[in-house]
């Protein structure tokens, strides 16, 4: 990985520093951060988990965002510049969203950009619109702590 010419690389608006996080949280957190931002936002993700060097670009792209420039590598730390994009749609999820709109109050509050990523609570994998459903909020009421 070559270090990028910094003058060509736009400055990020947001950053998530995932150094120290072990698998699979770099990928999960990257996608959650993407979820929390509006399309067009520039997000810099820094990680030092070698598996995420390989995974984050693929997952961000599969999630509808795009990579800007090349990752910057400093030793064991790699940072990616991601332009947040629209979440990809598939028919099954579109139907699910339509069903949810018919029943208001099924959407959890606070999930601003996550249109349709509610899916079924915690449902994993390829069936839903987003590969990562926003984690359930229920238990956060009990244990709610923000760093």
């Amino acid at each position, binding site marked *: 990985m070559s270090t990028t010419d910094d003058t060509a690389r736009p400055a990020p*608006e947001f*950053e998530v520093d995932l150094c*120290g*996080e072990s698998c699979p949280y770099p990928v999960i957190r990257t996608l959650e951060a993407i979820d929390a931002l509006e399309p067009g936002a520039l997000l810099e993700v820094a990680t030092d988990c070698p598996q995420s060097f390989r995974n984050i670009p693929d997952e961000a792209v599969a999630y509808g965002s795009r990579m800007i420039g090349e990752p910057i590598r400093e030793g*064991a730390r790699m940072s990616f510049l991601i332009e947040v994009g629209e979440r990809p749609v598939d028919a099954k999820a579109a139907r699910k969203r339509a069903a949810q709109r018919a029943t208001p109050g099924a959407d959890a509050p606070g999930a601003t950009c996550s249109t349709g990523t509610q899916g079924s609570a915690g449902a994993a994998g390829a069936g839903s619109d987003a590969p990562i459903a926003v984690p359930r909020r229920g238990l956060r009421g009990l244990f709610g702590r923000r760093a």
Partner: protein
Amino acid sequence: MHPEPDSTAAAAPVATAPDVAAATAAASASSTHVSTDTPFRSRVGLPPGPVFAALGLLSALYFAITGTVWAVTGEFTRLGGHVVELFDPTVPQWAYFADVVHLEGDPLSRTDGWIVVAMLGGSLVAALAAGDFRLRVPELRRRLVQAFVGGIVAGFGARMAFGCNLAAMFTGIPQFSLHAWVFTAMTALGTWLGVRLIRLRWWQGPTIPRPAVARTAMTPEAKARRLRRHRATAAIIGLGLLAATVGYALTGRPMLAVAVVFGTAFGALIQRGQICFTAAFRDLWVTGKTKLADALVLGLVVATVATFIVLQVTGTAPLTKPVGWHTVIGGVLFGLGIVMAGACETGMMYRATEGQTSAWLAFIGNIVGATVLAYGWDHWGIQRTLVAGAPKIDLLTTFGPWPALALSLAALGAWSLAMRGIRTRRRARLISIEGAR
């Protein structure tokens, strides 16, 4: 798979919002993101498909030479036994160490011991040489606890089932032992349960993107110096492993020399390829990605065919383990534990040598869990209630060699087919993204 068209990069410095938009549009047009969503391509290091195939071949060769399979949890149990032995000298008399895994000598006098040591050595050499080593302490301290507890669950489950993702999966399936198939299926279930657990907010902890802060990068000279230091260390460790190999070869202990060589190769390959069985299963449930699982199936195909040839040519009996409820429960616990810990037996070994402290705790947890199982084997009646009477089912003798091979390959094909839905959905998603651009 979907290469972006190359064009000259925009070099305009960015100042205002419209400039940002223009620059990112130009920069993204020149972004060289080639999708590596296939087992045969990797943007860093080695692609997992060929690496898994190489591991399959090497493990069959290791079996041909030594008559044992590539395995680690048996040795973890011994390591734990050695530690407890310091406090209680009657440990070798536990039923587990009498019947299942013998506790004699020290790790460096056994091939299994050297496999573990050389794997750590080999992956450390690979990590240092590639500049992947960095002491990493998780910002969320709960990760350390999660890794430790997950390790205990995984180690316990693995030993209950007579093996982990190696002996009860990657090297168990090629031995045509039914217990490995059951274990694999149950591990898949366990990982699915594990994913449900780790995505709960209280387990995972919060993520908030913060406004960016200007960061000063390390100077190129400092980076180069550190890399040189790491590579020098890697060379020294490599020489040490070489010395051990030569030493054992010259002093009439060739099997230990073989263990050092193969262990080093295994270790280097798993680090460069990031061969993590946890990720292979977990990615299916978390992001719908089959890259590692496809690579695993490929590796199993190679290992199965190669081991079949070895078995047929040498005429040795395959290594079969009992299959029963202990396999089912052990498999589920193992799958759950490896997701909780974030890594499996191979994954946490190379992560430990990359400097990830959570992996060290997973390692210790695994040893603890394996030792607990060894204790509970007779003291808690585990063997009596779950394992006694369990049959050893060897597909080669049950069906005959060629039908057994056909059955195994068919089952691997069925596994690959079962993932087809996930695979095509992901591909469709990638294509729809391309199309929208």
